[in-house]
């Protein structure tokens, strides 16, 4: 995004980024992914379902039902519900088509699925950044209209969501991939390496850089104490 478009976008964004029409169809709650992720078991039998689906395709439904909600939420948080509907579906279509190449020694299909989803979402990184910047400027989030309060409640500051949106927008798309898979989906570094087909050392350096950038931006915006010791979690 560039400066020349900013004001236009801001002006225009106001009506659109404001409360949206409820999307068609019934919304179902999938619960909060933090709990979902923290609670997840490492062995859910994904590998056996995928192996079975080579003989009997319908067996893949187990994988779909288990992971479609979290893949959708991940995509939705990054690029909005409309695209998430489309790309989450595509993620499983791609996964199904490539299931013969899934390493069944790995039980958990999440790194593989989130890798596919992340690569699909990459087509839309420009939109992702534009919407993050619009949120940072206007305080209204097109992707999740209620999320400002969500962050504010946790951070005791309405500005935190905006500052964070600006910080995430300023990352490279590669850094954002690693950081969000780590923070949102709680994939560990080796899993992220598998998901994104990059070297574990690259994951480590990208994650380090991304966290440093975000800390710096948040501190500059007054949303994080710069003196706080780094948490290497």
């Amino acid at each position, binding site marked *: 995004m560039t400066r020349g478009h900013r*004001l236009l976008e801001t002006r225009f964004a106001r009506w*659109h980024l*404001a409360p949206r029409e409820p999307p068609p169809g019934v919304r179902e709650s999938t619960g909060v992914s933090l709990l979902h992720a923290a609670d997840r078991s490492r062995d859910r039998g994904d590998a056996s379902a995928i192996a079975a689906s080579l003989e009997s395709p319908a067996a893949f439904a187990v994988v779909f039902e288990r992971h479609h909600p979290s893949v959708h939420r991940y995509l939705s948080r990054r690029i909005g519900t409309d695209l998430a509907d489309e790309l989450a579906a595509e993620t499983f279509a791609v996964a199904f088509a490539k299931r013969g190449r899934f390493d069944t020694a790995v039980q958990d299909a999440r790194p593989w699925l989130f890798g596919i989803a992340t690569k699909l979402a990459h087509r839309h990184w420009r939109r992702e950044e534009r919407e993050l910047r619009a949120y940072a400027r206007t305080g209204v989030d097109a992707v*999740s209209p209620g999320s400002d309060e969500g962050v504010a409640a946790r951070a005791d500051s*309405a*500005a935190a969501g905006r500052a964070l949106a600006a910080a995430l927008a300023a990352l490279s798309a590669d850094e954002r991939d690693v950081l969000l898979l780590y923070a949102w989906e709680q994939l560990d570094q080796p899993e992220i390496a598998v998901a994104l087909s990059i070297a574990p050392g690259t994951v480590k350096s990208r994650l380090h850089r991304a966290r440093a950038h975000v800390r710096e931006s948040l501190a500059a915006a007054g949303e994080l104490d710069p003196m706080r010791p780094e948490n290497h979690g």
Partner: protein
Amino acid sequence: MDELDLIRSFRADVPGPSVAATARADRAWRPGAGRRRSPRRGARFAAAVAAVAAVAAAALVIPSADDGGLGAGSARAAEVLRRAAAEVSGLPRALAPGEYWYVRRNTTWTTGVEGERAGAYTAMGLEIREEWTAADGTRRWTTRQAGPLRFPSAGDRARWEADGRPDLTPPPSEDRTRTGFHVGIREYRYEQLLDLPRDPRALYERFRDAAVRCRCGNGVDDQSFVVAVELLYTAPLPTDLRAATLRAIALIPGIEQRAERDILGRPGVGVAYEGSEGRQALIFDPATHELLGERSGAGGGSVDVASGIVDSPTARP
């Protein structure tokens, strides 16, 4: 709380997939589902419309016919701003608790649409927005649309018609929010805003500092202009601070004086910054130096048609 905690809470409340989206996705992977790339017909169109804010902005820089060619000249632009600062009007004093600053603003919006049955086209509309802002940073606003869709060219209109004349007009909306006041990406309380320096050089340094911190990918001067214009248009600045802001803009290297028309077609003297992908301009009345409006590219812009202090978020001056 560290940055990871903040990131984890960021957009944590997005809705899950709808039953309908889940059903479409389930069909999409199953053998015999046919073309899997587009499990939802119309998704592309919906996404295009959903992304209008961004798409419009990125896709559109319509050459303006209003380039009067008064010539480049930061000095002349600075002189326009200094005169405007001397004559500045608007909120005469800082807002008191319980008071609201009311603004009625006409804004043209422009959207790029990737048609489902025709090629990409551009449509424009006029939005009337009323906004009540209080000193505590809360706002109430309403929007409605005025007039039919307009198109920058006959070709755009033809593609819209071929696309089935979709209704791109947003519905009326209303909300109450707390958005605070911003200098760049940093939020200020109203008292902090009022504490901004009246010295143009010192204020310019604040804008510049905000531009540097933004790391928005624009040039610093470019972004400084954005920060200052956004402040003018989003915060209830008392006249002395508005004047200081105009004088501070005069110090941004690269500003130019140009002939511009506002979105109502009134000719004016523009103070513009030509960024890497477009121009943003403040437009002043040539005789009185009153601020008429602002434009971004030729497709977007706004004019304030009424303003004043009122004592409730539903009252008009």
